[in-house]
């Protein structure tokens, strides 16, 4: 039996280690309760001053007990010990402290804490200037909490998209009854709670509900809910974000209670819920009291002490001093008394506490010291005593002699702060309510209502009746029930409470600036004096104070500290809390695993891979692939021992000299039909299609309305009212959306219909002098003669027994046929062509060779040779612009703007290096004078550059200012290695300038 375990509390033993030391807990423990049971006082060190810290709370509010769980790839940093369910073999360690958490050398720095007030970074480390990076190195080393894994996450995560009528966030008393009321109407209900068990505060309650012990009442209600088929219950599930249009996110921890790494499916699941109505029943956090050295291990929240005693059977100490401003916390004295351990005294800041429970405590012989404050805790790594003194009625001054009370546990309560976080995510501004000394949720911005403690209703009866009303109301507004609660009122036993005192900073005998640190935000060591200092320095806005002091920026996000901090600020500014305002809580309510937010969309599923129907064949041939948009395109097909350049040389020469074959299936294909199709595409393209006859193709360029080239490709007239538009591989989706935009929003009178058929067709392009011969072997029903089937014609026919469309278009400048067949026949047609081409040494080529061949021809690639700032004229393609078209096509007007008609624009040219073997790097900048000093006057840049095997020298395309008038000039490309490569500006057409070869 561990030293602090209450004898009557038993369970199966669970072995675990903390900081390498073996301990035993029991089933049902959290790591925190198990550590407390074993008398572990120091579990962490604070962020800034490395002060020893113990467990302070029992849930999401815990600021101190931050641990590293597990090791290796499965480790998780920064978990709160209060939220870790104990499992056999659990390993955890403190995140700070060197050499150990019990003896931390950094703690010495804490002794100089006075040198590190808020903002001290901003005031120093500036001189000498060059040392800042060294200072920063050490600042960073001292910061941070746990450590990230250094290996890939072994776990997987998934997501569930859900719709429901009523989502209930929180399964405490209000949430449970809300769910029950909604469930009975037939509404689809999801109820989620961050804890392993439903019940919330009732799990640790000694109260009787409906005549039975609270935990038993919870169990029966949970059983009742489980019987509803329309209710989904999500334990270990945190509603962490509330977004627009009633979209909420829930993180379900499926396996974390079983081990660090899941052995049974996805570790965590993200529920993406669109709820018609929401009931927020997220409870409240007890507020600590801010007194000197309130951070020493052994100072805890009163409700946490009760929770450990009642729910976990752990008494975290021996001699308790309870310090409260309210009746509610007196329960802790009763609970502690029940363990048989000593209650030294109850310190109540109020002059005349007179509630029923006060009387009950006094009746047990416990000393109640009224009108006093616990002004300072003393001790090193554990509380040894409390200093208690009378204080004035306003709670601002010590008015009498200090009394010392020996103790090892201080439970404190400054009242309760509703957990308004989710309501605040919606944009609702929390409203200060003097009556309950707390912020209530602001006016609702979504289809939600709060119920119970998160609405500022702290008595159990109130929580239950609000929950019932909220559940019925939410059901009604989502279309179920009549809006009134149906279950009878639940009888509860509770004390009637008297008003609490608003006390946010307990006075000390010394002024705040000189008193021992009175901590407000434990994790980041924000103290009351720090907040007052920030005000003294002129910061007035609560956001400034937060940012200057780091208040609320910890991993607990100020669940404990924010309200006290704000109140201390208000006081320092001589304002009310309402005037001072609040800060806006943002998601996540509690920290949420990146992996769960990413879900399945990582690794190979990060983005879909698109394959052509011939992909498998390419893989079998050992092709190297290039990512083009989502597509995997064969880049080149290396043979045994070949370098990329050797493969590309071989592939290119094959096309120029005999025959090559390219998988061009990825080109976008849009089928366009309708009586106005020719008019429509003539408005979109720069050139005209009004007179294009069936059987003919035409190359077109489309511009954005700003006149800049957007996409290009061939468009074929399939019939009078029927066109097939080819787009670039990467541009297909954008082009389709573009066409639909103009048709639907500007020219709905034009009857045109668009269908993406990219994936429907496989395109095998045979290119080279032997292209006709190979086609003749596989296609007998098309007259392939140049007279009958000329360049830029297309024909219907049968290829290898498959109905096909064959296009005589060419991106290589050679005689080419693009054979299009339904994708199901893709591999068949491909392999048939390969077999038929064997006698011509048919050579599959990839995108790299395609790029070389088209560059030899001076054909541009949109997106490579253009960059969104290039017009057709810049590309030397004025011939594609129909200047006399009746309709002012898209982008036409922009071509006349003063900057677009300016001389000296960057224009497409060819570059030929003076050293023929030297290949310019793509992206090299072009200058006219290589000798000039930096900054150099840059005149353009190299867009495409290759070694051309068929020409025997390197070739490059570039855009150069005024380039069209500079043919023959020598320019320079200064490289990073100091060389400057000289090149002559030449025509961008290097090969077959008259274009004869594609016409044969």
């Amino acid at each position, binding site marked *: 039996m561990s030293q602090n375990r209450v004898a009557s509390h038993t369970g199966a033993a669970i072995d675990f280690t903390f900081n390498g030391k073996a301990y035993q807990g029991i089933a049902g423990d959290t790591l925190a309760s198990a550590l407390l049971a074993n008398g572990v006082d120091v579990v962490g060190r604070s962020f800034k001053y490395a002060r020893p810290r113990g467990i302070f709370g029992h849930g999401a509010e815990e600021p101190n007990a931050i641990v590293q769980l597990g090791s290796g790839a499965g480790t998780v940093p920064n978990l709160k010990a209060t939220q870790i369910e104990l499992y056999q073999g659990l390993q955890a360690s403190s995140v700070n402290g060197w050499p150990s958490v019990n003896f931390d050398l950094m703690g010495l720095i804490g002794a100089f804490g006075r040198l590190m007030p808020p903002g001290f970074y901003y005031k120093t480390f500036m001189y000498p200037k060059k040392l800042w990076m060294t200072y920063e190195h050490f600042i960073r080393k001292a910061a941070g909490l746990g450590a990230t894994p250094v290996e890939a996450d072994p*776990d997987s995560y998934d997501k569930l998209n859900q719709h429901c009528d009523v989502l209930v966030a929180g399964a405490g008393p209000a949430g449970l009854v809300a769910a029950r009321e909604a469930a009975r109407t037939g509404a689809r209900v999801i109820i989620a709670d961050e804890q392993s068990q439903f019940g919330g505060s009732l799990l640790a309650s000694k109260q009787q509900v409906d005549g039975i012990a609270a935990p038993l009442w919870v169990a029966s209600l949970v059983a009742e809910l489980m019987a509803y088929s329309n209710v989904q219950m999500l334990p270990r599930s945190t509603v962490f974000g509330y977004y627009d249009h009633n979209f909420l996110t829930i993180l379900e921890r499926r396996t974390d209670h079983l081990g660090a790494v899941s052995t049974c499916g996805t570790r965590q699941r993200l529920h993406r819920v669109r709820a018609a109505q929401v009931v927020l029943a997220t409870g409240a956090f007890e507020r600590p009291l801010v007194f000197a050295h309130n951070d020493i291990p052994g100072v805890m929240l009163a409700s946490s002490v009760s929770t450990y005693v009642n729910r976990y059977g752990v008494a975290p100490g021996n001699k308790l001093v309870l310090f409260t401003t309210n009746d509610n916390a007196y329960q802790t004295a009763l609970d502690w008394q029940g363990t048989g351990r000593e209650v030294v005294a109850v310190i109540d800041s109020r002059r005349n506490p007179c509630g029923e429970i006060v009387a009950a405590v006094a009746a047990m012989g416990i000393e109640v010291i009224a009108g006093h404050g616990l002004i300072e805790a003393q001790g090193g790594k554990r509380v040894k005593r409390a200093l208690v003194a009378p204080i004035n009625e306003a709670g601002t001054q010590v008015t009498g002699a200090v009394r010392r009370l020996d103790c090892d546990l201080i439970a404190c309560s400054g009242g309760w702060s509703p957990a308004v976080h989710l309501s605040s995510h919606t944009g609702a501004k929390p409203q200060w309510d003097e009556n309950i000394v707390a912020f209530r949720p602001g006016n609702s911005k979504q289809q939600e209502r709060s119920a119970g403690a998160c609405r500022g209703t702290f008595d159990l009866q109130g929580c239950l009746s609000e929950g019932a009303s909220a559940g019925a109301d939410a059901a009604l507004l989502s279309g179920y029930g009549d809006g009134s609660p149906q279950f009878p009122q639940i009888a509860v036993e509770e004390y009637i409470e008297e008003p609490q005192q608003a006390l946010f900073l307990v006075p000390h005998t010394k002024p705040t600036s000189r008193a021992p640190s009175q901590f407000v935000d434990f994790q980041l060591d924000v103290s009351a004096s720090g907040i007052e200092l920030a005000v003294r320095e002129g910061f007035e806005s609560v956001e400034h104070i937060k940012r200057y002091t780091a208040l609320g920026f910890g*991993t607990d996000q100020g669940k404990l500290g924010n309200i006290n901090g704000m109140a201390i600020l208000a006081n320092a500014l001589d304002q009310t809390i309402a005037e001072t305002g609040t800060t806006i809580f943002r998601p996540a309510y509690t920290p949420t*695993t990146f992996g769960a937010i990413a879900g399945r969309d*990582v690794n190979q599923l990060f983005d879909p891979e698109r394959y052509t129907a011939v992909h498998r064949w390419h893989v079998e041939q050992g092709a190297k692939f290039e990512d083009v948009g989502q597509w995997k395109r064969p880049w080149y097909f290396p043979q045994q021992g070949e370098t990329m350049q050797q493969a590309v040389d071989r592939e290119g020469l094959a096309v120029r000299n005999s025959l090559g074959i390219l998988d061009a299936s990825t080109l976008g294909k849009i089928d366009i039909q309708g009586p106005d199709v020719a008019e429509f595409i003539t408005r979109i393209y720069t050139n005209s299609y009004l007179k294009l006859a069936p059987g003919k193709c035409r190359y077109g360029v489309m511009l954005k309305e700003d006149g800049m080239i957007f996409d290009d490709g061939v468009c074929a007239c399939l019939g009078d009212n029927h066109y097939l538009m080819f787009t670039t591989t990467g541009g297909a989706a954008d082009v389709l959306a573009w066409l639909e935009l103009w048709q639907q929003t500007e020219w709905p009178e034009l009857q045109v219909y668009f269908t993406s058929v990219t994936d429907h067709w496989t395109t095998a392009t045979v290119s080279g002098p032997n292209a006709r011969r190979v086609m003749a072997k596989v296609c007998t029903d098309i007259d392939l003669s140049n007279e009958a089937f000329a360049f830029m014609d297309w024909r219907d026919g049968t290829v290898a027994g498959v109905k096909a469309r064959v296009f005589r278009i060419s991106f290589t400048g050679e005689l080419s046929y693009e054979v299009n067949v339904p994708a199901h026949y893709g591999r068949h047609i491909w392999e048939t062509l390969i077999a038929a081409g064997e006698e011509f040494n048919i050579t599959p080529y990839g995108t790299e060779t395609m790029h070389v061949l088209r560059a030899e021809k001076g054909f541009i690639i949109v997106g490579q040779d253009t960059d969104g700032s290039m017009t057709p004229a810049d590309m030397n393609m004025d011939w594609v612009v129909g200047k006399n078209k009746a309709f002012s096509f898209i982008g036409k007007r922009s071509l006349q703007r003063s900057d677009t008609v300016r001389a000296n624009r960057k224009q497409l040219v060819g570059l030929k290096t003076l050293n023929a073997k030297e290949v310019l790097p793509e992206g090299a900048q072009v200058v006219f004078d290589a000798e000039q000093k930096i900054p150099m006057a840059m005149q353009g840049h190299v867009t495409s550059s290759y070694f051309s095997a068929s020409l025997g020298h390197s070739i490059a395309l570039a855009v150069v200012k005024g380039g069209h008038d500079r043919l023959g000039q020598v320019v320079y490309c200064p490289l990073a290695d100091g060389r400057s490569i000289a090149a002559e500006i030449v025509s961008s057409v290097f090969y077959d300038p008259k274009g004869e070869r594609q016409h044969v």
Partner: protein
Amino acid sequence: MKKYSAFSLLKNALSYHENWQKVWRSPTPKQDYNVIVVGGGGHGLATAYYLAKIHGITNIAVIEKGYLGGGNTARNTTIIRSNYLWDEAAQLYDLSLKLWEGLSQELNYNVMFSQRGVLNLGHNLQDMRDIERRVNANRLNGIDGEVVTPQRIAEIAPLINISRNSRYPILGASWQPRGGTARHDAVAWGYARGADALGVDLIQQTEVTGIRRKDGAVVGVETSNGFIGARKVACVTAGNSGVLAAMAGLRLPVESRPLQALVSEPVKPCLDTVVMSNAVHGYISQSDKGDLVIGAGVDSYNGYGQRGSFNVVEHTIQAICELFPAFSRVRMNRQWGGVVDTCPDACPIISKTSVQGLYFNCGWGTGGFKATPGSGYVFADTVANDHPHPLAAAFTVERFDTGALIDEHGAAGVAH
């Protein structure tokens, strides 16, 4: 202004920090100023500071509807770099970077400018062409940068995944060693303190509700606390620029979009540089406090709500997990959004307007933080001389009529 130093810290510690000087005054607005700067973010405060410091104009008010530095200054991911593609942008951002390099000393306020370098990753061949082009241009403009291999990337950021088997393998990157991060709030506070010390009135919690004009010239602003006269009004209100423009009967080529960001819980140092990826679409750095600071692109729709849609956050985190598979088990602590004023060419507008004495500095989109000092510097010059500073000349609003856009979408790409 009392100087900050280690010595002043020690001295004040001995007196329990009871004697620190106020960081700035809380003045009552005068009836009339030479210049009113509307917007007390980093850019506005820098503008006021340089107007006072360099141009000797001290009869200035900065009018802020909320608190100083409370807009995008407080919401950005603090990345600083100058490796922009086009000469005009690169020179403007590099002026800024040079000012950053001495800013802590200039302001006597440690803005924690950390020159830990910036990697812009390339994941496909076109990315690499663009990176080569940009780095070459930067080099010839005198801006540091080099193209680095995946192996070098892994040395700089060991937890990054350079496997060839990832969905979009990292093929290389540009590396700008002078880039880095700074403490965003400190920048606003430092400029505010400096401007205040030079006599600038910083007026918070006062909203400009109208721009009063007479005979085509500005005469002052209407505010939630009454009229304040001014010869010149300089608007530096980021996401709310369109609203200010409308007050003067103008329209701007900007649209206000949500830009989201998020931080993890603080962790021990695990990333010593800034990593950005256009293709995988996310960027990440680690703050001195230990948080992983993460962002991506803007939401698609116009929005002034300082929040965006959750799917954008999901995509961002997917990108980060893709680049850093080890971060999958780290947890998101907090997410938020700002309102960024995006221009069609992803470059700012620093401009006079058709109203005499009315100036706009806006359109910084997702990349404004890094430009804070340079933006303030050239805008102050523009306002003081009623003529564009040479480095601002290309950024006038007229470029949207002539077509002389400076398309930095490639460099601005993923935001920042």
